[in-house]
């Protein structure tokens, strides 16, 4: 096992909620939303870690903490063993970790040409030497993400969503990072374009050995691209394992529910596992015991009173008092060809 590139230990992030007039008058304490609760994660060089969960589970907050857009209150983040702290030089961090955002329509400055957007990264970080070398490097970056260098004179509103997302990836690559946080990079794109962007990310990983934190809610995509997957629920990681292990032998009832909810393109096949029902509990007042106990079909009494720890067996960790290890699970399959199962 190689030394981890990034390791996160028990980070927590809370957001204070605004108090309205009644709260102030009645002197009720300020409510806080715990977006991340005691999250630990490691990323090894060149590894793709998928992070999945419903909206509001904290997966984006995790990505933003890693990229430095948010500062966790507790816990440590180590970059190649050395702590990265809040006040650390943003320029240094930018050379290690980059980010690709969800909405390609909002993530490019509408008043800068594509070439200017890329060139700015090189100039700010003093990469690629003089102006002529920078121009060459911009062409190179555009080719790398499959765009014609002739497009560099264009403004963002004249190109398609897929092309914009490619430019966003090129912009991230321009800083020569070792880790890219991709926050739902394909959710806003058409299905055919999604596949192209996924393939591009895979190619780049293979060529440049860049590690990827891939945040998504589309489990098929995550299964296809990830080496390891972390499932988040209500601000915590409830299960983490190698991708194939997680998809073929899920232990947490929530993971099973999520997998069962994947639409199967074959009408003859049906799964017996019920998908998750109900709503996520109010994150302002999460359940005392297991966060999932309000929706879990395998709930036992201790679940409602005791908060489970992440129980690690080898690479496979699960946060459950009544893990479904013994119950059979039929892999609902994947629209992408999966290997070594069924």
């Amino acid at each position, binding site marked *: 096992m190689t030394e981890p590139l990034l390791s996160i230990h028990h980070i927590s992030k809370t957001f204070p909620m605004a108090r309205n007039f009644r709260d102030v008058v009645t002197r009720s304490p300020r409510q806080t939303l715990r977006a991340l609760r005691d999250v630990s994660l490691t990323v090894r060089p060149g590894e793709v870690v998928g992070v999945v969960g419903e909206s509001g589970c904290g997966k984006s907050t995790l990505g933003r903490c890693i990229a430095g857009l948010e500062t966790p209150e507790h816990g440590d983040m180590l970059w190649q063993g050395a702590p990265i702290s809040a006040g650390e030089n943003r320029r240094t961090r*930018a050379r290690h970790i*980059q980010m690709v955002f969800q909405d390609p329509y909002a*993530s490019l*400055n*509408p008043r*800068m040409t594509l070439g200017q957007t890329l060139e700015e990264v090189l100039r*700010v970080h003093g990469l690629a030497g003089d102006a002529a070398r920078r121009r060459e490097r911009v062409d190179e970056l555009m080719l790398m993400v499959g765009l014609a260098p002739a497009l560099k004179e264009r403004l963002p509103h004249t190109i398609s969503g897929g092309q914009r997302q490619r430019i*966003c990836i090129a912009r991230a690559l321009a*800083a020569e990072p070792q880790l890219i946080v991709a926050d739902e990079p394909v959710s806003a794109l058409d299905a055919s374009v999604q596949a192209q962007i996924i393939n591009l990310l895979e190619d780049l990983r293979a060529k440049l050995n860049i590690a990827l934190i891939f945040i998504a809610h589309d489990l098929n995509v995550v299964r296809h691209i990830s080496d390891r997957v972390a499932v988040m629920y209500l601000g915590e990681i409830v299960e983490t394992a190698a991708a194939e292990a997680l998809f073929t032998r899920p232990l947490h009832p929530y993971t099973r529910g999520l997998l069962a909810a994947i639409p199967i393109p074959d009408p003859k096949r049906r799964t017996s596992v019920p998908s998750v029902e109900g709503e996520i509990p109010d994150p302002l007042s999460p359940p005392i015991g297991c966060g999932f106990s309000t929706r879990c079909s395998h709930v036992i009494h201790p679940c409602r009173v005791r908060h489970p720890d992440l129980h690690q067996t080898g690479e496979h960790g699960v946060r459950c008092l009544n893990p479904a290890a013994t119950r059979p699970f039929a892999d609902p399959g994947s629209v992408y060809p999966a290997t070594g199962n069924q």
Partner: protein
Amino acid sequence: MKLLSQETVRRFKQNRNLQVGLFLLAVIVLTSLFGPSLVPYDPEELDFGNPLLAPTLQHPFGTDDLGRDVLARVVAAGQVDMQVVAVCVLLPFLIGSTIGLVSGYFGGWIDRVIMRFVDILWAFPFYVLVISIVGALGPSTTNIYLAFSLVVWISFARIVRGEVLLARRLEYTLAASVLGYSHARIMLRHILPNVITPAIVFMMADVVLTILGVTSLGFLGLGIQPPTPEWGVMIADGRNFIQDGWWISLFPGLAIVLVGLTFTLIGDGLDDLLRPKA
């Protein structure tokens, strides 16, 4: 940065408001620049032999009670008023936009302190503040600049701050932050160009307010002091002769209307032209 894309040119060609507004602005600017040398009368020269002459070919706008040529005075006053208005609009625009940008970008206590101060100033009617500042400091051009700068910047600060609060959450700003760009670069290169449009449009409306404000001060005797010709002062002077010499007040009044109309058209036109496309 491409300022004039084909799209912009196309939109300009359809934009009648902006075309007419810019044409009128050109007329006003050229008149202010070259008018004084074309009119054969000195705006301050008294001619007691020819008081209150009705408009004729010799004196197209007539003469006032002291025999001064009204056309020469309207044109000369245009120069004075346009200069004062330009400063009274540009200074608050610069001050207010900068403060709004910093306040919105950094947020936190800086924002809270600045915005509470803005709220306090906002509570006073515009004219009350301007008149009391000029009244306290004494009427002079510098004090007029000062009064308008102190009062009007809050409008620009509020507009820009609101836009910055939105732009700060947009992903291109977040990307710039993740890319390790300095705060100055993010503010000036990535946020400012995308938030300044509403402030520029408001600036045009502010010209209209300011021309009324400056001439009102003149009318009240708190603005530009006689004998320097100034539209507000001229209207005030003509009041006493409104029955025998309506032209003394009418023409400076029309000049104010023309400036107001011009900048209203430009403001509307710019709003259409600069509205960001999806």
